């Protein structure tokens, strides 16, 4: 919507910002499923490190099915390092590093629990839905 407004010479107000598309590494579900930079694949017992940066203006809450991950690093909340969670809030301009050593196999969704961000232009499923596959 902002793009449309700006492209047609209008102005925008940051306080009214309500995005309607949500991407990870530039892609939304279902295209995201084919992106090897975003879809996590590993084996049981391997240690996975995941860097998440929120370069948008929306707040997100990234939820992992199947696994809890440890916060290794947080730009905004250093005191949260060491917490083991399944849902990870991430604010605009914040980065997190998470670590997982999976103990069981399976394919599980990894998605935003800010459920507006699993839609795209009002259609579900879209947006920030990825997967983790452990073999």
């Amino acid at each position, binding site marked *: 919507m902002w793009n449309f407004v700006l492209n047609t010479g209008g102005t925008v107000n940051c306080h009214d910002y309500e995005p309607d598309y949500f991407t990870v590494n530039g892609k939304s579900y279902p295209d995201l499923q084919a992106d090897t930079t975003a879809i996590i694949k590993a084996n049981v017992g391997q240690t996975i490190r995941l860097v998440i940066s929120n370069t948008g203006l929306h707040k997100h809450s990234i939820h992992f099915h199947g696994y809890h991950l440890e916060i290794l690093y947080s730009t905004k909340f250093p005191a949260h390092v060491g917490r083991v969670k399944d849902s990870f809030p991430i604010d605009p301009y914040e980065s997190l590093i998470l670590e997982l050593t999976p103990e069981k196999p399976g394919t599980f969704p990894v998605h935003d*629990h800010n459920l507006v*961000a699993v839609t795209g232009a009002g259609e579900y499923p879209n947006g920030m839905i990825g997967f983790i596959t452990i073999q």
Partner: protein
Amino acid sequence: MFRKHISFLLLLILYFSQGFAQTMKTFDLVARQSGTAIMWDGTSVDLWGFKEGLGGNVNLPSPLLVINEGDSVTLNVINQSSMPHTIHLHGLDVSQANDGVGATSFDIPPVMGTGTYKFKATHAGTFIYHCHVETVIHLQLGMYGGVVVKAAGGANNAWTGGPAFDSDYTWVISDVDTSWHTNIPMNGSVPGFDPQYFLVNGKSKQQLNDTTVSITADVGDKVYLRMINIGYTRNRVIFPAALSAEILSSDGRPLPVSEVTDTVDIYPGERYSVMLDFASAVTDSILVEYYNMYDNNVLFTNRVPLGATPPPPPATVKYDQLDDFGDFTTKSWGSGGPNPNPPANVYSGGPAGSGDAYLEVTSNGSGGAGAKLVAFNTAHWAGDYIGEGIKTLRMNVNNFSGPNVNLRLRFDGPGGTFLSVNPVQVTAGSGWQSVIFPIEAADLTGGADYTATMSEVSNVWIYNSAGAIFPGPVTSSVMGIDNILATGPATGFPVEWLAFNARPRGSSVELTWTTGIEQNNRGFEVELSTGDIFNDFSTIGFVEGKGNSDKRSDYSFLTDPLPPGGYQFRIRQVDFDGKFSYSNIASVVLNGQSMASVYPNPVVDNGAQLNVNLAKEEKVTVDILDIYGRHIETIVSGKLGNNTLYLDLEEYLDGMYICQITTKTGKMTVKFMVLRG
């Protein structure tokens, strides 16, 4: 991809105990698209959701599932609706097959389709279950509830071995946009989300007084608050500083370092658990704020009431409290408490005769409530017996009819239940008599902490039992009780001394004594002194007591032969619990020897006894001298034989004195000391 189709036969909740922390737990949930939630302003919102059992409507949120760490859990789901649904076990890290995501496992088909989810609860904590079909829509429509995994064995700890709490609350925080519920979005087409209602456990504003939401505690309690955000907004929960809120856990895992804070931000899908310390009386509220995910504007604030009141003040037993039933009421005895619950009435004809009201407690002897002789009081006889210095309860009792009974007291309180060590036997047809129940630590048995119970007694019982157990036998009895008095220790000793005498029998001495009431009396040690200073008594024998008696009892003891001389005797009465008391002193002279003694010696008060035992009655002078032999006063100038005189020593300073008895034939002296400290 696979589906599970399980025949729908039974809706039973099954529990198979396999020892501690190995329980199987089964929930039978029905998915329905029929339900309503009433918002704070009366607006009715259509719901989808899960409920336990067939029939009926769903509520918001769906039922809280409570299990214990280590449980093996089965969720049987019946889909009683027109659309597929699933249950995603959010945060429980179940296997892919049980994850409740249709694309990676199975949907539960519509119209009585069934599905089963199985998992083991490996971590105590707070989790969520919700439908994961078209999640954005089905979740908003109400298909969510909380899962609490308690510590192993269901203990009140944040996690197994973790910090303990007195009570816990679970808040499922969410929001409602009524337009989604009125015109249900279909085929994945999701309208803008613009909520009007902001909820905690489905409640808002004045509805927050709901007992699952508002927090009530006793002062001193620790309350563990589990918070779940399963809404579409970001929550900020703000606690009164007085509660010293401390985040202990998030997403079902203990924090590596707990965080003391008055503000907890909870994003959708997150859970945080905080320990609240109600250290002092407080009435306040917790703010629950709801924010958009894309700005910092507060959409709504709920204020959840909380309060901690001091524990109810202990009831009002007072030293010297007396129930004489003079107002012809039962004074709350024998009613309003637990069974057995015998009839208790007030009649005329107490110890003081006609017109004197007394409590009559009857037992029917035929089983059921009222079969046993019990009276109890949870009203003004509850309270702090230690703080009041109450050492005995005394009363008049009358065993009107029935067998002999053994009355005991029972005290209930935080330190456990205590019973009288020794009973007071009241024989059938006893008539009115006075009885004393000692209630000091050695007098009561059973509970873990005497002080805890006796400083906060909740219930006092008078009951019949031969042994220190409760309750006693079934009896058909009529027991009168009157003049129940809370007071100090039994007056010095639980034996009423009526007489004590010593007289020569040849070269031996025969001692005889008589008691009235005996309580808990083990017996009597016979003590002998040769009459020197400091009354150096030594024990020469023992006579068993009656234990408990309300009748006159006569005792006697014959000494071994003694050499000529003067002797003093006294009796040391000993209780079963080690308490003791002394009789007076009796003196005797064998074989023509005269003697005298002062008792007690040292003198600790303003007076003392002077026992004079002369071989024959004769004229004497009794003088008091100081330690240097200076005359102070003459007590007697006249005839004496065997006499007990009273020495008034009020004017005497502390020190050693000499009592000198002068006869025609000689002088006899006794030293005594005044030592008042």
